[in-house]
């Protein structure tokens, strides 16, 4: 066999796997989004209705817009908070930073936990009867002890954000520590001697040089926040009501629980739009030419 042919043969298995697990389901979901697609109605998976599912989501379903809103706020808050806190920690933990050593190892622990597990543990911690927070506030601030954290829409949302930020900080911190370590130390020292205060060194020298890494971190985290599912599912299951129902959760509910697979597929495709945009930006930063 010629080398030229051989190389295609060698790649073929991988291409087939990708096709079967990614491309085909993607195309199938696109097809389903144009059908009535009720799991409990035989034949409806081939009953085409054009873009009706999409217009339904846009114009007839306030719960869709609720999920868009929840997902948007959730993404903004988790990305913002995680990035800021991770940056602060990275500055403290980076070579030449003020902490370091053993703390770094300790910090990675939350990242070793699966999101679903984080969801369950936070649910237990915020349990109003036997939760950790109940016990803690019972001693420190009794009025807060009996608050049903997960029953209040705003508080439940805040708990979701908190759990996510807690789980993601380690990874982003590690990435940012790497970014900080790659900044030449002498540019920072040069700025110090040139007369810059600590804050100005950070703003004028450190931050601009960290820029590309920071952009990658923000984009990556945005993607992960947008598609958050497991944690929410375990922690609040979208509730109370639909106060914490993100789009992924909304899609799951409509598709799996209500059997409206066609409608769920169309919402999933609506989510693809911001995802493609973010993926494009990500690729641009990661593979950018120097």
């Amino acid at each position, binding site marked *: 066999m010629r080398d030229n042919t051989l190389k295609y043969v060698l790649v073929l298995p991988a291409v087939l796997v990708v096709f079967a697990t990614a491309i085909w389901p993607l195309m199938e979901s696109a097809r389903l989004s144009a059908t009535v697609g009720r799991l409990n109605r035989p034949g409806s998976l081939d009953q085409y209705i054009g873009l009706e599912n999409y217009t339904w989501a846009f114009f007839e379903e306030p719960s869709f817009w609720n999920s868009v809103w929840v997902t948007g706020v959730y993404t903004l808050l988790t990305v913002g908070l995680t990035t800021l806190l991770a940056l602060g920690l990275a500055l403290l933990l980076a070579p030449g930073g003020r902490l370091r050593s053993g703390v770094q190892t300790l910090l990675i622990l939350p990242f070793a936990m699966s999101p679903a597990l984080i969801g369950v543990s936070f649910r237990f911690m915020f349990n109003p009867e036997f939760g950790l927070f109940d016990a803690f506030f019972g001693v420190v601030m009794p009025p807060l002890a009996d608050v049903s954290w997960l029953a209040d829409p705003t508080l439940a949302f805040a708990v979701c954000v908190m759990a996510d930020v807690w789980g993601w900080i380690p990874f982003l911190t590690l990435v940012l520590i790497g970014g900080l370590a790659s900044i030449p130390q002498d540019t920072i020292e*040069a700025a*110090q001697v040139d007369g810059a205060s600590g804050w100005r060194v950070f703003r004028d020298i450190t931050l601009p040089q960290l820029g590309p890494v920071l952009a990658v971190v923000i984009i990556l985290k945005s993607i992960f926040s947008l598609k958050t599912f497991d944690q929410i599912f375990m922690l609040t299951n979208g509730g109370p009501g639909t106060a914490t129902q993100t789009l992924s959760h909304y899609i799951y509910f409509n598709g799996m629980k209500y059997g409206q697979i066609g409608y769920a597929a169309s919402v999933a495709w609506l989510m693809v739009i911001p995802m493609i945009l973010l993926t494009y930006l990500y690729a641009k930063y990661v593979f950018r030419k120097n």
Partner: protein
Amino acid sequence: MAEVILKNLSKRWGDFVGVDNQSLDIHDKEFLVLLGPSGCGKTTTMRMIAGLEEPTSGEIWIGERQVNDDLPKDRDVAMVFQNYGLYPHMTIFDNIAYPLKVRGTPKAEIRPRVERAAAQVELTQFLDRKPKALSGGQRQRVALARAIVRTPKVFLMDEPLSNLDAKLRVTMRAELKHLSRELKVTTVYVTHDQIEAMTLADRVAVMKHGIIQQLGTPDEIYNDPANLFVAGFIGSPAMNLVRGRIEGGQFLTEDGVKLSPIASEDRSEVVLGVRADDINVHEAGEGDIDAPIYAFENTGEASFLTVEWGDQRVIARGDRHLRKDQDDVVGLSLNPDHLYLFDPNTEKRIRL
């Protein structure tokens, strides 16, 4: 403009001693070179003056002020780094302007001052570029321009030429010397290159193991070395150091080769120092001693003969027209006015 005074300055990291209780007065407008091999504490000393390293003990004075507790930004020094330390995301103009900007210089004043500094280092046409678009020599000039754009009390230069290729280094060295004579600002310059030290310095401090071995003008360091280390470190080729003894006013090498009359009492253990320049080369039989040639090297501007005295080899410098071959025998005589004796145990100079 200011003098820099170091009083009993030490820097230790655990058991490791970087700088060991050193005192040094650097005069106003002086160009002082800290010279020594890597790890001798010269860069640490400079970084302590800059405020980038905190002394373990001792005092640092710049002008009338003790600066130990001052941040680098408050010490009014300018520094040129070995790797230039340019800000990669800023244009050359912004790089040079940065010290002015952070010190709140009025905007209208910044442009003319940056342009003047750039002109002094011949960079005017590159002001809009980023550092990565410049060659090593040009980056070095940017670092220099960033230092001279203000008039700091002290210039600190940390091996500024060591990343340049050999030819460029010679050119930049001359430019640096010219510039420093024009600016007349107290300068501390760190290098491991003794030629740079000799050519640039008003005074040189030769360091080893965190201790200043000798402080003096280039002439003093070259012609009057205080110990074996300084003698062996300064000069190219390095000073010949021959182990031997003195008997009846004669220096004999370890294996008993009679070398040269010398005005000293008898000593059983001594090291004789003589520079290649101070060994005269003659035809065989015409010098004080005949020796076989181990290697003959012609550099164009001179010829260097490595000869064997017993087991020890020494280098003599001959006329540039001299042509000899390996294993030829030549006559050698030592210039009696430029012989140095050292105690091999204390490594100190024995004054004659």
